[in-house]
């Protein structure tokens, strides 16, 4: 399966709050072409922590779609995720940056400036801050 984008916490919340129609368009494109998007389990946890009741329902829907794959933050990821966190701040964004570099996949994020401390520009797709 070709993974075409990563979604960080802000991207998950932007979708769930209907602030990022582009994410829905990517989901339909994934379904049409057999592609996938991925998100970190850390971002999933952060998104549910911040979501309103309505947004929780949309997060449930998003994460139930076969076009969205949740990637675990494994024991092996812990060290470098923490080190990346020193540069970018939140651990969800740090693990997303690790996934972006290791899988060569651009990241949908509302924290483009923070992600840009470790990622090159091609790997950053900026979403409006919610």
């Amino acid at each position, binding site marked *: 399966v070709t993974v075409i984008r990563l979604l960080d916490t802000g991207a998950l919340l932007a979708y769930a709050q209907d602030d990022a129609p582009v994410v829905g*368009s990517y989901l339909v*494109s994934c379904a049409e072409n057999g592609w996938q998007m991925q998100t970190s389990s850390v971002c999933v946890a952060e998104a549910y922590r911040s979501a309103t009741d309505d947004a929780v329902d949309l997060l449930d829907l998003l994460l139930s779609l076969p076009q969205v794959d949740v990637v675990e933050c494994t024991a092996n990821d812990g060290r470098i995720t923490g080190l990346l966190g020193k540069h970018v701040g939140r651990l969800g964004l740090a693990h997303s940056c690790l996934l972006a570099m290791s899988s060569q996949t651009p990241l949908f994020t509302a924290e483009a400036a923070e992600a840009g401390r470790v990622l090159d520009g091609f790997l950053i797709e900026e979403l409006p801050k919610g």
Partner: protein
Amino acid sequence: MTVKFTISLPNDLAALVRSQPNTSGYIADAIRIRQRVDATQAALAAAGIGPIPPEVREQIEASVRELQRRRADPKWRAELDARLAAINAGKFPA
């Protein structure tokens, strides 16, 4: 279990299907893809998200083509690996 039946197709599609080594498998794959698209569109429509505007579809497809071009470049892969190694070694930025 499979079922055998006859279908009618426009000439261009019939030619495409005939050119496949496994015509039944090809059609089954196409129907499965359509099922995925319909299910995703239904789920998104239920959430108030409409179909993709044509210009957005073209942008997405162009961005995926560019991504595939980049991924085929071993130099880019090496740059990303080197950056991760530097971060892991506490030597980023250099």
